[in-house]
């Protein structure tokens, strides 16, 4: 299991690096999905199959689909990739690189001091996770559900207001939440129309 853990970890790190360096947004997201799947495998080998399954269902399967959905709607073309390349100056690597280096030193120190970090004592069953969540950590569950509820109401409110504004501007017959194209990113995909059928 150790070998599986380290292979998954290497895949996760590599995929994450590629996520940052890709200029094509969808390709970057694909690497991010790969990274999340690798983290799920790492969880599984650490004896947390339930968390691994949730990682795949929620992060890789639901949240990332929404990310790709948004990127698809923006319809980023060649010009967006060129813009991304232009924004990326050599100097901007310094800050994150120093911070990541500090973390790396910390992880290396912990690994060396504690010896083998993997090899959990036993697998954690879904039931144990549930009992922990609704026992000692109940307040955390409730707080996060309140946060989610607030987010949901906020999104609903914002969506409603947009439709109202549209009605005022264009008359009542427009009932889709269609937003007028604006901003560089949306225009960036405009050149695709020439090539697309």
């Amino acid at each position, binding site marked *: 299991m150790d070998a599986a853990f380290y292979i998954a970890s290497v895949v996760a790190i590599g995929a994450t690096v590629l996520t940052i360096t890709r200029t094509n947004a969808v390709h970057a997201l694909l690497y991010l*999905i790969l990274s999340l799947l690798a983290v799920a495998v790492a969880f599984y080998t650490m004896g947390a199959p339930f968390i691994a*399954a949730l990682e795949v269902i929620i992060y890789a399967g639901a949240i990332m689909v929404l990310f790709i959905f948004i990127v*698809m709607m923006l319809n980023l073309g060649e010009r967006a990739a060129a813009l991304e390349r232009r924004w990326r100056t050599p100097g901007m690597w310094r800050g994150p690189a120093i911070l990541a280096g500090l973390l790396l030193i910390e992880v290396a120190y912990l690994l060396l001091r504690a010896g083998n970090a993997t090899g959990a004592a036993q697998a954690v069953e879904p039931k144990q996770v549930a009992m922990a969540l609704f026992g000692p950590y109940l307040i955390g569950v409730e707080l996060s559900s309140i946060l989610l509820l607030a987010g949901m109401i906020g999104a609903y409110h914002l969506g409603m207001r947009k439709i109202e504004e549209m009605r005022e501007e264009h008359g009542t017959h427009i009932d889709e939440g269609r937003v007028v194209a604006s901003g560089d990113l949306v225009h960036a995909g405009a050149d695709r129309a020439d090539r697309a059928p």
Partner: protein
Amino acid sequence: MTSPHPIWSVLGILIVALTIAAGLIWVERRLLALWQDRYGPNRVGPFGLLQVLADTIKILAKEDWVPPFADKPVFVLAPAIVLITVLMSFAVIPVAPGIIVSDLNIGLLFFLGMSSLGVYSIVLAGWSSDNKYALLGGMRGAAQMLSYEVFMGLSLMGVVALAGSFSLVQIVEAQRNLWYVVPQFAGFVLFVIAGLAETRRLPFDLAEAESELIAGFHAEYSGMKFGLFFVGEYLGVTLISAMITVLFFGGWHGPVLPPLVWFLIKTFFFIAFFVLMRAALPRPRFDQLMAFGWKVMLPIALLNVLVTGAVKLAWSR
């Protein structure tokens, strides 16, 4: 009954699942024809059975074309994803006692995870084609499958609560005396509808909707890449039918006949039901589909979980 070596289960399930998926192309066309008062394929071989072979030869011989404007690596990857995720799901399905590839203790979650990864196939195919119709189909597919996945998971929580496990083998064992379709009828109906939506079959095939989007997300695909989407769809139908059998109709349990035969009979019954749905139902509008999912199905699924939990608690007192 001694269980065979896992590799035999892998090979057996793989070959049988792929054969069924290929055979389904003929079965569906014949059944549809029967219900629409016509013959269907009946010229190639006895009862037109060799039609599948003829179609396969045709599809393999076709030009495998990648449009020059497409995003090539993603375009090639997309059809593989649908097949891989569906075939992976077959690994946790208990066909008969001992005939299972992997009895995971999180088997049900594994199935849900794989089906949620299957969305990428549609989304990426639609996006990489760089075609307006394909993009629209891909976006419809993503929105539809995400929405229906939510209560697909919820509809199964009643079964999990009753069986007390995510392991599919234990869920089947727990149905020795009573099939879960009786105490979990609401869950069963929800799962069938969500399953239809997950496999993107009519009346939920808005991602391809040939009358408005040409062929939706696979408009640019040809040859065997299109064939993979096609086989993936039939594999999906087989998978959902097998899951309905396992979760709600007692899996391999049944009198007289051997377990494997019972499993196949039940699975084929639901496959035929899926074909009947296609023959009988029209396609809804997309907003109707989404409203139905969020405003009708989700509340029922939540209510089902609540009631099942309450009854289970009261029972155990």
